[in-house]
Protein backbone atom coordinates (compact mmCIF):
# COMPACT_ATOMS: atom_id res chain seq x y z
CA UNK A 1 0.00 0.00 0.00
CA UNK A 2 1.16 3.50 -0.72
CA UNK A 3 2.52 5.72 2.03
CA UNK A 4 0.11 7.97 3.88
CA UNK A 5 1.72 11.03 2.34
CA UNK A 6 1.22 9.65 -1.15
CA UNK A 7 -2.35 8.79 -0.37
CA UNK A 8 -2.97 12.26 0.97
CA UNK A 9 -1.56 13.78 -2.19
CA UNK A 10 -3.68 11.52 -4.31
CA UNK A 11 -6.77 12.42 -2.34
CA UNK A 12 -5.97 16.11 -2.58
CA UNK A 13 -5.53 15.77 -6.29
CA UNK A 14 -8.84 13.96 -6.59
CA UNK A 15 -10.73 16.29 -4.25
CA UNK A 16 -9.08 19.64 -4.74
CA UNK A 17 -11.36 21.70 -2.53
CA UNK A 18 -11.50 19.29 0.35
CA UNK A 19 -9.74 19.77 3.63
CA UNK A 20 -7.57 16.73 4.11
CA UNK A 21 -4.70 16.72 6.53
CA UNK A 22 -2.44 14.09 7.90
CA UNK A 23 -2.58 13.68 11.68
CA UNK A 24 0.67 12.38 13.11
CA UNK A 25 0.72 9.77 15.83
CA UNK A 26 3.27 10.07 18.60
CA UNK A 27 3.07 6.51 19.76
CA UNK A 28 5.27 3.67 18.49
CA UNK A 29 2.27 2.24 16.65
CA UNK A 30 2.73 5.04 14.07
CA UNK A 31 -0.80 4.65 12.81
CA UNK A 32 -1.29 8.03 11.20
CA UNK A 33 -4.73 9.19 10.26
CA UNK A 34 -6.40 11.58 7.87
CA UNK A 35 -8.56 14.36 9.11
CA UNK A 36 -11.21 15.05 6.52
CA UNK A 37 -13.52 18.01 6.46
CA UNK A 38 -17.15 17.01 6.89
CA UNK A 39 -18.12 18.43 3.53
CA UNK A 40 -16.06 15.94 1.57
CA UNK A 41 -16.18 13.03 4.02
CA UNK A 42 -18.78 10.95 2.24
CA UNK A 43 -17.17 11.39 -1.20
CA UNK A 44 -13.72 10.57 0.13
CA UNK A 45 -15.10 7.50 1.86
CA UNK A 46 -16.80 6.32 -1.32
CA UNK A 47 -13.60 6.88 -3.24
CA UNK A 48 -11.56 4.92 -0.73
CA UNK A 49 -14.00 2.07 -0.88
CA UNK A 50 -14.26 1.93 -4.65
CA UNK A 51 -10.68 2.71 -5.55
CA UNK A 52 -9.21 -0.42 -7.11
CA UNK A 53 -5.82 -0.04 -5.48
CA UNK A 54 -7.09 0.59 -1.99
CA UNK A 55 -10.37 -1.31 -2.03
CA UNK A 56 -11.10 -0.40 1.56
CA UNK A 57 -14.24 -2.49 1.60
CA UNK A 58 -14.60 -2.86 5.33
CA UNK A 59 -14.98 -0.21 7.99
CA UNK A 60 -13.91 -2.11 11.00
CA UNK A 61 -14.22 0.31 13.85
CA UNK A 62 -16.00 3.58 14.50
CA UNK A 63 -15.08 5.54 17.56
CA UNK A 64 -16.07 8.80 19.12
CA UNK A 65 -13.61 11.05 20.87
CA UNK A 66 -14.43 13.91 23.16
CA UNK A 67 -12.04 16.82 23.42
CA UNK A 68 -13.49 19.03 26.11
CA UNK A 69 -13.32 22.78 26.24
CA UNK A 70 -10.05 23.88 27.66
CA UNK A 71 -8.86 27.02 29.30
CA UNK A 72 -5.67 28.08 27.64
CA UNK A 73 -3.42 30.50 29.44
CA UNK A 74 -1.40 32.49 27.03
CA UNK A 75 0.86 35.44 27.31
CA UNK A 76 0.02 38.39 25.16
CA UNK A 77 2.60 40.99 24.37
CA UNK A 78 1.26 44.42 23.80
CA UNK A 79 3.35 47.23 22.57
CA UNK A 80 2.18 50.69 23.11
CA UNK A 81 3.84 53.72 21.77
CA UNK A 82 6.04 54.86 24.58
CA UNK A 83 7.45 58.22 25.08
CA UNK A 84 7.78 60.06 21.86
CA UNK A 85 10.95 59.07 20.14
CA UNK A 86 11.63 56.28 22.57
CA UNK A 87 11.04 52.61 22.00
CA UNK A 88 7.52 51.33 22.33
CA UNK A 89 6.66 50.04 25.73
CA UNK A 90 6.02 46.33 25.65
CA UNK A 91 3.79 45.00 28.36
CA UNK A 92 3.22 41.34 28.88
CA UNK A 93 -0.17 40.25 30.04
CA UNK A 94 -1.48 36.80 30.81
CA UNK A 95 -4.92 36.10 29.59
CA UNK A 96 -7.00 32.97 29.70
CA UNK A 97 -8.88 32.00 26.65
CA UNK A 98 -11.49 29.31 26.36
CA UNK A 99 -10.46 26.96 23.61
CA UNK A 100 -13.67 25.35 22.48
CA UNK A 101 -13.57 21.61 22.43
CA UNK A 102 -14.94 19.35 19.75
CA UNK A 103 -16.12 15.85 19.13
CA UNK A 104 -14.29 13.61 16.78
CA UNK A 105 -15.26 10.43 15.01
CA UNK A 106 -12.57 7.98 13.97
CA UNK A 107 -13.08 5.33 11.30
CA UNK A 108 -10.68 2.42 10.90
CA UNK A 109 -10.81 1.13 7.34
CA UNK A 110 -9.40 -2.13 6.09
CA UNK A 111 -9.41 -3.94 2.82
CA UNK A 112 -10.57 -7.52 2.97
CA UNK A 113 -10.05 -7.99 -0.75
CA UNK A 114 -6.48 -6.72 -0.82
CA UNK A 115 -5.63 -7.58 2.78
CA UNK A 116 -4.33 -4.16 3.73
CA UNK A 117 -4.99 -1.40 6.15
CA UNK A 118 -5.66 0.37 8.29
CA UNK A 119 -6.49 3.71 6.79
CA UNK A 120 -7.82 5.89 9.55
CA UNK A 121 -10.25 8.70 8.89
CA UNK A 122 -11.21 11.34 11.40
CA UNK A 123 -13.89 13.95 11.24
CA UNK A 124 -14.44 16.76 13.66
CA UNK A 125 -17.52 18.60 14.76
CA UNK A 126 -17.55 22.37 15.10
CA UNK A 127 -18.01 22.32 18.84
CA UNK A 128 -19.57 20.19 21.53
CA UNK A 129 -22.93 21.82 21.82
CA UNK A 130 -24.78 22.99 18.75
CA UNK A 131 -22.63 22.19 15.73
CA UNK A 132 -22.32 18.48 16.29
CA UNK A 133 -23.48 17.22 12.93
CA UNK A 134 -21.33 15.02 10.71
CA UNK A 135 -22.24 13.08 7.61
CA UNK A 136 -23.01 9.46 8.24
CA UNK A 137 -20.89 6.83 6.54
CA UNK A 138 -23.52 4.12 7.00
CA UNK A 139 -24.55 4.37 3.35
CA UNK A 140 -20.95 3.62 2.45
CA UNK A 141 -20.30 0.88 4.96
CA UNK A 142 -23.15 -0.91 6.68
CA UNK A 143 -20.88 -1.73 9.58
CA UNK A 144 -21.12 1.90 10.67
CA UNK A 145 -24.82 1.58 11.35
CA UNK A 146 -24.76 0.46 14.95
CA UNK A 147 -21.41 1.97 15.75
CA UNK A 148 -22.54 5.41 14.62
CA UNK A 149 -25.68 4.98 16.65
CA UNK A 150 -23.46 4.24 19.59
CA UNK A 151 -21.40 7.38 19.00
CA UNK A 152 -24.63 9.34 18.76
CA UNK A 153 -25.87 7.81 21.98
CA UNK A 154 -22.76 8.13 24.06
CA UNK A 155 -21.09 11.21 22.56
CA UNK A 156 -23.93 13.11 20.99
CA UNK A 157 -22.64 13.36 17.45
CA UNK A 158 -25.58 13.66 15.06
CA UNK A 159 -25.00 11.73 11.85
CA UNK A 160 -26.75 13.12 8.85
CA UNK A 161 -28.09 10.52 6.48
CA UNK A 162 -28.10 7.72 9.01
CA UNK A 163 -31.15 5.55 8.30
CA UNK A 164 -32.12 4.94 11.90
CA UNK A 165 -30.42 7.28 14.31
CA UNK A 166 -31.73 6.44 17.76
CA UNK A 167 -30.16 5.73 21.10
CA UNK A 168 -28.74 2.26 21.14
CA UNK A 169 -27.29 1.45 24.52
CA UNK A 170 -29.14 3.83 26.80
CA UNK A 171 -32.91 3.98 26.92
CA UNK A 172 -34.79 6.40 24.70
CA UNK A 173 -35.87 8.77 27.46
CA UNK A 174 -32.31 9.17 28.65
CA UNK A 175 -30.86 12.67 28.61
CA UNK A 176 -27.16 13.32 28.19
CA UNK A 177 -24.20 11.62 26.60
CA UNK A 178 -22.37 9.51 29.14
CA UNK A 179 -19.05 9.07 27.37
CA UNK A 180 -18.40 12.78 27.27
CA UNK A 181 -15.71 13.83 29.64
CA UNK A 182 -17.93 16.27 31.48
CA UNK A 183 -20.80 13.86 32.00
CA UNK A 184 -21.97 13.83 35.60
CA UNK A 185 -23.22 10.46 36.76
CA UNK A 186 -26.56 10.23 38.48
CA UNK A 187 -26.10 10.44 42.19
CA UNK A 188 -27.37 7.05 43.20
CA UNK A 189 -24.92 6.60 46.01
CA UNK A 190 -26.47 4.98 49.02
CA UNK A 191 -24.07 3.14 51.20
CA UNK A 192 -20.69 1.87 50.41
CA UNK A 193 -18.51 -0.06 52.78
CA UNK A 194 -15.14 0.74 51.23
CA UNK A 195 -15.28 4.28 49.91
CA UNK A 196 -12.26 6.21 48.80
CA UNK A 197 -11.39 8.71 46.15
CA UNK A 198 -14.40 10.04 44.31
CA UNK A 199 -16.65 7.67 46.15
CA UNK A 200 -15.50 9.01 49.46
CA UNK A 201 -16.33 12.51 48.32
CA UNK A 202 -19.79 11.30 47.40
CA UNK A 203 -20.11 9.52 50.71
CA UNK A 204 -19.26 12.73 52.52
CA UNK A 205 -21.97 14.52 50.64
CA UNK A 206 -24.48 11.92 51.67
CA UNK A 207 -23.43 11.49 55.25
CA UNK A 208 -22.22 14.87 56.32
CA UNK A 209 -22.40 13.85 59.94
CA UNK A 210 -19.77 11.19 59.51
CA UNK A 211 -16.68 13.22 58.88
CA UNK A 212 -14.76 10.40 57.25
CA UNK A 213 -16.86 7.35 56.73
CA UNK A 214 -14.35 4.64 56.73
CA UNK A 215 -14.73 0.95 56.46
CA UNK A 216 -17.59 0.75 58.79
CA UNK A 217 -19.49 -2.13 60.16
CA UNK A 218 -23.21 -1.92 59.79
CA UNK A 219 -24.94 -1.23 62.99
CA UNK A 220 -26.45 -4.35 64.44
Amino acid at each position, binding site marked *: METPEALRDRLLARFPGASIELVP*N*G*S*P*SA*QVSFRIGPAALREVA*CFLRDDAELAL*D*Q*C*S*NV*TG*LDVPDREVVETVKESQPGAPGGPPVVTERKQTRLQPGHLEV*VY*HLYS*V*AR*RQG*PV*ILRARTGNRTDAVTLPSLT*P*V*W*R*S*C*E*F*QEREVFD*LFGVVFE*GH*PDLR*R*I*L*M*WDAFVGH*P*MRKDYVEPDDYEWEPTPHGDVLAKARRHYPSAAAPGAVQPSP
Partner: protein
Amino acid sequence: MMLPDPAATGLARVRKIEGDALGLRTPAFAPTEGAGDLLEVSLGPHHPSTHGVFRMDVVLDGERIVRLKPVFGYLHRNHEKLGEATSYLGSMPYTDRLDYLNSMTNNWAYALAVEKLAGIPVTERAEYVRVVLAELSRLLNHTCLAGFLMQDCGCSGTPLMYAFREREKILDLFESLSGSRMMCNVQRFGGCRVDPSAEWLAATRRLVDGYGAFLDEFEALLSGNEIVMARTQGVGRLPAALAVNAGITGPMLRASGVGHDLRKVDGYGVYPRFNFRVPIGRDGDVYDRYMVRMLEMRESIAILDQALRDLPGGPILDPKAKQRGLRPKAGEAYGRIEGPKGEIGFFLVSDGTGNPTRYRVRAPSFVNLTVLEDLCLGHTVADAVIILGSIDIVLGEVDR
Protein backbone atom coordinates in the same frame (compact mmCIF):
# COMPACT_ATOMS: atom_id res chain seq x y z
CA MET B 1 -37.95 -29.54 3.96
CA MET B 2 -36.49 -26.17 3.07
CA LEU B 3 -38.25 -22.89 3.15
CA PRO B 4 -38.70 -21.57 -0.34
CA ASP B 5 -36.89 -18.44 -1.29
CA PRO B 6 -38.61 -15.48 0.36
CA ALA B 7 -39.07 -13.88 -3.03
CA ALA B 8 -41.18 -16.82 -4.12
CA THR B 9 -43.50 -16.70 -1.16
CA GLY B 10 -45.35 -13.62 -2.28
CA LEU B 11 -43.43 -11.37 0.04
CA ALA B 12 -42.51 -8.44 -2.14
CA ARG B 13 -39.64 -6.12 -1.57
CA VAL B 14 -41.16 -2.76 -0.94
CA ARG B 15 -38.77 -0.34 0.58
CA LYS B 16 -35.35 0.84 -0.38
CA ILE B 17 -33.29 2.66 2.17
CA GLU B 18 -32.37 6.11 1.03
CA GLY B 19 -28.74 6.83 0.46
CA ASP B 20 -27.83 3.18 0.40
CA ALA B 21 -24.88 3.42 -1.89
CA LEU B 22 -24.47 -0.24 -2.64
CA GLY B 23 -28.08 -1.24 -2.35
CA LEU B 24 -26.91 -3.91 0.03
CA ARG B 25 -29.55 -3.51 2.67
CA THR B 26 -32.24 -6.12 2.45
CA PRO B 27 -35.45 -4.16 2.20
CA ALA B 28 -38.31 -4.84 4.52
CA PHE B 29 -40.89 -7.34 3.44
CA ALA B 30 -44.49 -6.51 2.98
CA PRO B 31 -46.96 -8.92 4.47
CA THR B 32 -48.72 -11.27 2.15
CA GLU B 33 -51.75 -10.02 0.34
CA GLY B 34 -54.89 -10.23 2.37
CA ALA B 35 -53.02 -11.08 5.51
CA GLY B 36 -54.69 -10.40 8.79
CA ASP B 37 -53.32 -8.21 11.52
CA LEU B 38 -49.62 -8.22 12.10
CA LEU B 39 -48.44 -9.39 15.46
CA GLU B 40 -45.79 -7.44 17.28
CA VAL B 41 -43.76 -9.58 19.63
CA SER B 42 -40.84 -8.54 21.75
CA LEU B 43 -38.41 -11.45 22.00
CA GLY B 44 -36.38 -10.66 25.07
CA PRO B 45 -34.71 -9.22 27.03
CA HIS B 46 -35.65 -12.25 29.05
CA HIS B 47 -35.94 -15.06 26.56
CA PRO B 48 -34.32 -18.48 26.65
CA SER B 49 -32.64 -18.08 23.28
CA THR B 50 -31.34 -14.56 23.18
CA HIS B 51 -28.09 -15.63 24.80
CA GLY B 52 -28.42 -13.13 27.58
CA VAL B 53 -30.34 -9.92 27.80
CA PHE B 54 -30.81 -9.15 24.16
CA ARG B 55 -34.09 -8.13 22.66
CA MET B 56 -35.57 -8.42 19.20
CA ASP B 57 -38.71 -6.49 18.46
CA VAL B 58 -40.29 -8.49 15.69
CA VAL B 59 -43.38 -7.92 13.63
CA LEU B 60 -44.92 -11.17 12.54
CA ASP B 61 -47.23 -12.10 9.74
CA GLY B 62 -48.36 -15.43 11.06
CA GLU B 63 -45.01 -16.84 12.05
CA ARG B 64 -43.11 -15.04 9.35
CA ILE B 65 -40.95 -12.11 10.30
CA VAL B 66 -41.84 -8.91 8.51
CA ARG B 67 -39.68 -6.59 10.52
CA LEU B 68 -37.07 -7.10 13.19
CA LYS B 69 -35.36 -4.48 15.29
CA PRO B 70 -32.61 -5.49 17.65
CA VAL B 71 -32.60 -3.62 20.95
CA PHE B 72 -29.32 -3.40 22.82
CA GLY B 73 -28.04 -1.98 26.03
CA TYR B 74 -29.51 -4.29 28.64
CA LEU B 75 -26.01 -5.25 29.65
CA HIS B 76 -24.37 -1.91 28.98
CA ARG B 77 -22.10 -1.76 31.99
CA ASN B 78 -19.97 1.16 30.95
CA HIS B 79 -16.86 -0.81 30.18
CA GLU B 80 -15.35 1.96 28.09
CA LYS B 81 -16.05 4.68 30.63
CA LEU B 82 -14.52 2.56 33.36
CA GLY B 83 -11.54 1.86 31.12
CA GLU B 84 -10.89 5.57 30.88
CA ALA B 85 -10.93 5.88 34.65
CA THR B 86 -8.66 2.91 35.26
CA SER B 87 -4.95 2.40 34.77
CA TYR B 88 -3.72 0.37 31.81
CA LEU B 89 -3.06 -2.61 34.04
CA GLY B 90 -6.34 -2.22 35.89
CA SER B 91 -8.32 -2.61 32.67
CA MET B 92 -6.89 -6.06 32.02
CA PRO B 93 -9.23 -7.91 34.38
CA TYR B 94 -12.13 -5.91 32.99
CA THR B 95 -11.40 -7.23 29.51
CA ASP B 96 -12.01 -10.73 30.89
CA ARG B 97 -15.62 -9.74 31.32
CA LEU B 98 -16.20 -8.53 27.76
CA ASP B 99 -16.65 -11.78 25.94
CA TYR B 100 -16.83 -13.80 29.08
CA LEU B 101 -16.37 -17.09 27.31
CA ASN B 102 -13.01 -16.04 25.91
CA SER B 103 -11.09 -14.05 28.45
CA MET B 104 -7.88 -15.34 26.88
CA THR B 105 -8.37 -13.70 23.52
CA ASN B 106 -9.75 -10.50 25.04
CA ASN B 107 -6.65 -10.27 27.19
CA TRP B 108 -4.47 -10.81 24.18
CA ALA B 109 -6.20 -8.19 22.06
CA TYR B 110 -5.90 -5.64 24.83
CA ALA B 111 -2.29 -6.52 25.56
CA LEU B 112 -1.53 -6.26 21.85
CA ALA B 113 -3.07 -2.79 21.66
CA VAL B 114 -1.13 -1.57 24.68
CA GLU B 115 2.05 -3.12 23.36
CA LYS B 116 1.53 -1.26 20.12
CA LEU B 117 0.77 1.93 21.94
CA ALA B 118 3.78 1.76 24.22
CA GLY B 119 6.13 -0.16 21.97
CA ILE B 120 6.65 -3.12 24.26
CA PRO B 121 8.25 -6.24 22.77
CA VAL B 122 6.85 -9.64 23.68
CA THR B 123 9.00 -12.56 24.68
CA GLU B 124 9.19 -15.54 22.39
CA ARG B 125 7.83 -18.02 24.89
CA ALA B 126 4.93 -15.76 25.72
CA GLU B 127 3.98 -15.54 22.05
CA TYR B 128 3.68 -19.31 21.90
CA VAL B 129 1.80 -19.50 25.17
CA ARG B 130 -0.58 -16.87 23.86
CA VAL B 131 -1.23 -18.97 20.80
CA VAL B 132 -1.87 -22.04 22.92
CA LEU B 133 -4.27 -20.20 25.18
CA ALA B 134 -6.04 -18.46 22.33
CA GLU B 135 -6.57 -21.68 20.41
CA LEU B 136 -7.83 -23.46 23.52
CA SER B 137 -10.18 -20.55 23.94
CA ARG B 138 -11.32 -20.93 20.34
CA LEU B 139 -12.02 -24.62 20.94
CA LEU B 140 -13.98 -23.71 24.03
CA ASN B 141 -15.96 -20.99 22.32
CA HIS B 142 -16.87 -22.98 19.24
CA THR B 143 -17.78 -26.03 21.29
CA CYS B 144 -20.08 -24.00 23.50
CA LEU B 145 -21.51 -22.22 20.51
CA ALA B 146 -22.40 -25.50 18.82
CA GLY B 147 -24.08 -26.63 22.02
CA PHE B 148 -26.05 -23.43 22.41
CA LEU B 149 -27.03 -23.41 18.75
CA MET B 150 -28.43 -26.92 19.04
CA GLN B 151 -30.22 -25.91 22.20
CA ASP B 152 -31.82 -23.13 20.18
CA CYS B 153 -32.78 -25.71 17.58
CA GLY B 154 -34.75 -27.43 20.32
CA CYS B 155 -32.45 -30.13 21.65
CA SER B 156 -33.15 -31.06 25.23
CA GLY B 157 -29.75 -30.17 26.47
CA THR B 158 -27.75 -33.14 25.26
CA PRO B 159 -25.38 -31.39 22.83
CA LEU B 160 -24.96 -28.58 25.31
CA MET B 161 -24.11 -31.06 28.03
CA TYR B 162 -21.50 -32.72 25.87
CA ALA B 163 -20.11 -29.32 24.91
CA PHE B 164 -19.87 -28.26 28.52
CA ARG B 165 -18.31 -31.56 29.44
CA GLU B 166 -15.43 -30.66 27.14
CA ARG B 167 -15.52 -27.04 28.25
CA GLU B 168 -14.91 -28.16 31.80
CA LYS B 169 -11.78 -29.97 30.67
CA ILE B 170 -10.44 -26.80 29.07
CA LEU B 171 -11.50 -24.73 32.06
CA ASP B 172 -9.60 -27.06 34.33
CA LEU B 173 -6.51 -26.22 32.32
CA PHE B 174 -7.24 -22.53 32.48
CA GLU B 175 -7.87 -22.71 36.17
CA SER B 176 -4.75 -24.63 37.02
CA LEU B 177 -2.74 -22.12 35.01
CA SER B 178 -4.36 -18.84 35.90
CA GLY B 179 -6.34 -19.52 39.05
CA SER B 180 -9.73 -18.75 37.62
CA ARG B 181 -12.10 -20.66 35.42
CA MET B 182 -13.43 -17.85 33.34
CA MET B 183 -11.75 -14.62 34.30
CA CYS B 184 -8.20 -15.66 33.64
CA ASN B 185 -6.47 -12.27 33.56
CA VAL B 186 -3.37 -13.94 32.22
CA GLN B 187 -1.79 -11.60 29.73
CA ARG B 188 0.50 -8.79 30.71
CA PHE B 189 2.15 -6.15 28.58
CA GLY B 190 5.12 -7.92 27.03
CA GLY B 191 4.18 -11.44 27.99
CA CYS B 192 2.09 -13.51 30.33
CA ARG B 193 1.60 -13.37 34.06
CA VAL B 194 2.09 -17.09 34.51
CA ASP B 195 4.44 -19.62 33.03
CA PRO B 196 2.96 -22.98 32.15
CA SER B 197 4.69 -25.87 33.82
CA ALA B 198 5.70 -29.09 32.13
CA GLU B 199 2.78 -30.89 33.77
CA TRP B 200 0.38 -28.29 32.49
CA LEU B 201 1.74 -28.66 28.99
CA ALA B 202 1.44 -32.42 29.23
CA ALA B 203 -2.17 -32.11 30.36
CA THR B 204 -2.86 -29.78 27.46
CA ARG B 205 -1.29 -32.23 25.10
CA ARG B 206 -3.58 -34.96 26.41
CA LEU B 207 -6.60 -32.75 25.92
CA VAL B 208 -5.59 -31.81 22.41
CA ASP B 209 -4.98 -35.44 21.51
CA GLY B 210 -8.42 -36.44 22.73
CA TYR B 211 -10.35 -33.54 21.29
CA GLY B 212 -10.67 -34.99 17.82
CA ALA B 213 -12.55 -37.97 19.19
CA PHE B 214 -14.99 -35.68 20.93
CA LEU B 215 -15.56 -33.74 17.73
CA ASP B 216 -16.23 -36.97 15.88
CA GLU B 217 -18.84 -37.98 18.40
CA PHE B 218 -20.41 -34.55 18.43
CA GLU B 219 -20.63 -34.53 14.66
CA ALA B 220 -22.11 -38.01 14.65
CA LEU B 221 -24.79 -36.70 16.98
CA LEU B 222 -25.59 -33.62 14.95
CA SER B 223 -23.84 -32.78 11.71
CA GLY B 224 -25.51 -35.50 9.70
CA ASN B 225 -28.80 -35.29 11.53
CA GLU B 226 -31.59 -34.73 9.04
CA ILE B 227 -33.52 -32.47 11.37
CA VAL B 228 -30.47 -30.30 11.94
CA MET B 229 -29.84 -30.05 8.23
CA ALA B 230 -33.45 -29.27 7.49
CA ARG B 231 -33.54 -26.63 10.17
CA THR B 232 -30.27 -24.92 9.31
CA GLN B 233 -29.61 -25.30 5.61
CA GLY B 234 -30.84 -22.41 3.55
CA VAL B 235 -31.73 -20.41 6.64
CA GLY B 236 -30.22 -16.97 7.12
CA ARG B 237 -28.16 -16.76 3.96
CA LEU B 238 -25.56 -14.01 4.07
CA PRO B 239 -24.05 -12.98 0.74
CA ALA B 240 -20.32 -12.32 0.76
CA ALA B 241 -20.54 -8.73 -0.51
CA LEU B 242 -22.95 -7.73 2.22
CA ALA B 243 -20.89 -9.54 4.81
CA VAL B 244 -17.74 -7.60 3.96
CA ASN B 245 -19.50 -4.28 3.73
CA ALA B 246 -21.31 -4.79 7.01
CA GLY B 247 -18.06 -5.40 8.82
CA ILE B 248 -18.79 -9.04 9.52
CA THR B 249 -15.69 -10.87 10.68
CA GLY B 250 -14.69 -14.22 11.99
CA PRO B 251 -16.36 -17.55 11.24
CA MET B 252 -19.50 -15.76 10.11
CA LEU B 253 -17.62 -14.01 7.30
CA ARG B 254 -15.80 -17.18 6.36
CA ALA B 255 -19.06 -19.10 6.20
CA SER B 256 -20.09 -16.67 3.48
CA GLY B 257 -17.11 -17.76 1.44
CA VAL B 258 -14.59 -15.01 2.22
CA GLY B 259 -11.32 -16.51 3.35
CA HIS B 260 -10.46 -13.67 5.69
CA ASP B 261 -8.67 -14.69 8.86
CA LEU B 262 -6.56 -12.18 10.76
CA ARG B 263 -4.24 -14.95 11.80
CA LYS B 264 -3.29 -15.16 8.13
CA VAL B 265 -3.96 -11.57 7.07
CA ASP B 266 -2.24 -9.70 9.90
CA GLY B 267 -0.02 -12.57 10.88
CA TYR B 268 0.19 -11.24 14.41
CA GLY B 269 2.09 -13.06 17.11
CA VAL B 270 3.79 -16.16 15.81
CA TYR B 271 0.89 -17.39 13.69
CA PRO B 272 2.87 -17.22 10.42
CA ARG B 273 5.01 -20.04 11.77
CA PHE B 274 2.13 -22.47 11.94
CA ASN B 275 0.68 -24.52 9.21
CA PHE B 276 -3.11 -24.40 9.18
CA ARG B 277 -5.98 -23.93 6.78
CA VAL B 278 -8.94 -21.58 6.78
CA PRO B 279 -12.21 -23.40 6.09
CA ILE B 280 -14.80 -21.43 4.16
CA GLY B 281 -18.45 -22.01 3.45
CA ARG B 282 -20.38 -21.43 0.27
CA ASP B 283 -23.96 -20.54 1.13
CA GLY B 284 -23.38 -18.50 4.25
CA ASP B 285 -26.39 -20.06 5.95
CA VAL B 286 -26.71 -21.29 9.49
CA TYR B 287 -25.42 -24.74 8.62
CA ASP B 288 -22.32 -23.27 7.02
CA ARG B 289 -21.68 -21.10 10.04
CA TYR B 290 -21.99 -24.17 12.24
CA MET B 291 -19.81 -26.35 10.05
CA VAL B 292 -17.13 -23.72 9.52
CA ARG B 293 -16.72 -23.59 13.26
CA MET B 294 -16.55 -27.35 13.53
CA LEU B 295 -13.83 -27.41 10.88
CA GLU B 296 -12.02 -24.50 12.48
CA MET B 297 -11.77 -26.48 15.67
CA ARG B 298 -9.90 -29.19 13.81
CA GLU B 299 -7.48 -26.56 12.51
CA SER B 300 -7.09 -25.24 16.03
CA ILE B 301 -6.10 -28.69 17.11
CA ALA B 302 -3.43 -28.67 14.40
CA ILE B 303 -2.13 -25.30 15.57
CA LEU B 304 -2.08 -26.46 19.17
CA ASP B 305 -0.15 -29.53 18.10
CA GLN B 306 2.53 -27.42 16.50
CA ALA B 307 2.63 -24.79 19.22
CA LEU B 308 3.02 -27.35 21.96
CA ARG B 309 5.71 -29.08 19.96
CA ASP B 310 7.72 -25.94 19.25
CA LEU B 311 7.22 -24.10 22.53
CA PRO B 312 10.58 -22.46 23.27
CA GLY B 313 12.10 -21.86 26.67
CA GLY B 314 13.12 -18.51 28.04
CA PRO B 315 11.39 -15.87 30.09
CA ILE B 316 7.64 -15.58 29.85
CA LEU B 317 7.57 -11.90 30.76
CA ASP B 318 10.24 -9.33 30.16
CA PRO B 319 11.08 -8.10 33.67
CA LYS B 320 11.81 -4.68 32.24
CA ALA B 321 8.32 -4.32 30.79
CA LYS B 322 6.43 -1.93 32.97
CA GLN B 323 3.02 -3.05 34.20
CA ARG B 324 1.98 -0.85 37.08
CA GLY B 325 2.08 2.87 36.41
CA LEU B 326 2.49 2.47 32.67
CA ARG B 327 2.41 5.87 30.98
CA PRO B 328 2.68 5.53 27.21
CA LYS B 329 3.62 8.53 25.13
CA ALA B 330 0.74 10.57 23.80
CA GLY B 331 -0.62 8.91 20.71
CA GLU B 332 -3.04 6.22 19.68
CA ALA B 333 -3.05 2.62 18.58
CA TYR B 334 -5.55 0.14 17.26
CA GLY B 335 -4.71 -3.48 17.90
CA ARG B 336 -6.83 -6.34 16.67
CA ILE B 337 -6.70 -10.09 16.69
CA GLU B 338 -8.82 -12.90 15.34
CA GLY B 339 -10.99 -13.74 18.29
CA PRO B 340 -13.24 -16.78 18.19
CA LYS B 341 -16.16 -14.52 17.32
CA GLY B 342 -14.32 -12.34 14.85
CA GLU B 343 -12.09 -9.34 14.87
CA ILE B 344 -11.72 -8.11 18.41
CA GLY B 345 -9.89 -4.81 18.54
CA PHE B 346 -8.93 -2.23 21.09
CA PHE B 347 -8.46 1.40 20.17
CA LEU B 348 -6.48 3.27 22.78
CA VAL B 349 -5.66 6.95 22.89
CA SER B 350 -3.06 8.05 25.36
CA ASP B 351 -2.45 11.57 26.52
CA GLY B 352 0.67 10.63 28.39
CA THR B 353 -1.04 9.97 31.72
CA GLY B 354 -1.57 6.70 33.51
CA ASN B 355 -5.10 6.23 32.17
CA PRO B 356 -6.08 6.06 28.52
CA THR B 357 -8.05 9.08 27.48
CA ARG B 358 -10.06 6.95 25.10
CA TYR B 359 -10.54 3.25 25.50
CA ARG B 360 -12.62 1.69 22.81
CA VAL B 361 -13.54 -1.93 22.27
CA ARG B 362 -14.33 -3.08 18.77
CA ALA B 363 -16.54 -6.00 19.66
CA PRO B 364 -17.04 -8.57 16.91
CA SER B 365 -20.44 -9.77 18.00
CA PHE B 366 -21.76 -6.22 18.18
CA VAL B 367 -20.79 -5.49 14.59
CA ASN B 368 -21.87 -8.94 13.43
CA LEU B 369 -25.38 -8.18 14.62
CA THR B 370 -25.63 -5.46 11.97
CA VAL B 371 -27.07 -7.92 9.49
CA LEU B 372 -29.42 -9.67 11.90
CA GLU B 373 -32.53 -8.10 10.40
CA ASP B 374 -31.40 -8.86 6.85
CA LEU B 375 -30.87 -12.50 7.72
CA CYS B 376 -34.16 -12.94 9.51
CA LEU B 377 -36.63 -11.20 7.20
CA GLY B 378 -39.00 -13.63 5.57
CA HIS B 379 -38.05 -16.42 7.93
CA THR B 380 -39.98 -17.65 10.93
CA VAL B 381 -39.49 -17.01 14.62
CA ALA B 382 -37.89 -20.42 14.97
CA ASP B 383 -35.37 -19.44 12.29
CA ALA B 384 -34.64 -16.08 13.89
CA VAL B 385 -33.67 -17.89 17.05
CA ILE B 386 -31.13 -20.12 15.33
CA ILE B 387 -29.88 -17.31 13.11
CA LEU B 388 -29.13 -15.33 16.24
CA GLY B 389 -27.53 -18.42 17.69
CA SER B 390 -25.32 -18.86 14.65
CA ILE B 391 -24.10 -15.27 14.83
CA ASP B 392 -22.61 -16.21 18.18
CA ILE B 393 -23.10 -13.18 20.34
CA VAL B 394 -22.07 -12.59 23.89
CA LEU B 395 -23.88 -9.69 25.44
CA GLY B 396 -20.98 -8.65 27.60
CA GLU B 397 -19.25 -7.75 24.39
CA VAL B 398 -22.24 -6.45 22.45
CA ASP B 399 -23.29 -3.95 25.06
CA ARG B 400 -19.96 -3.61 26.82
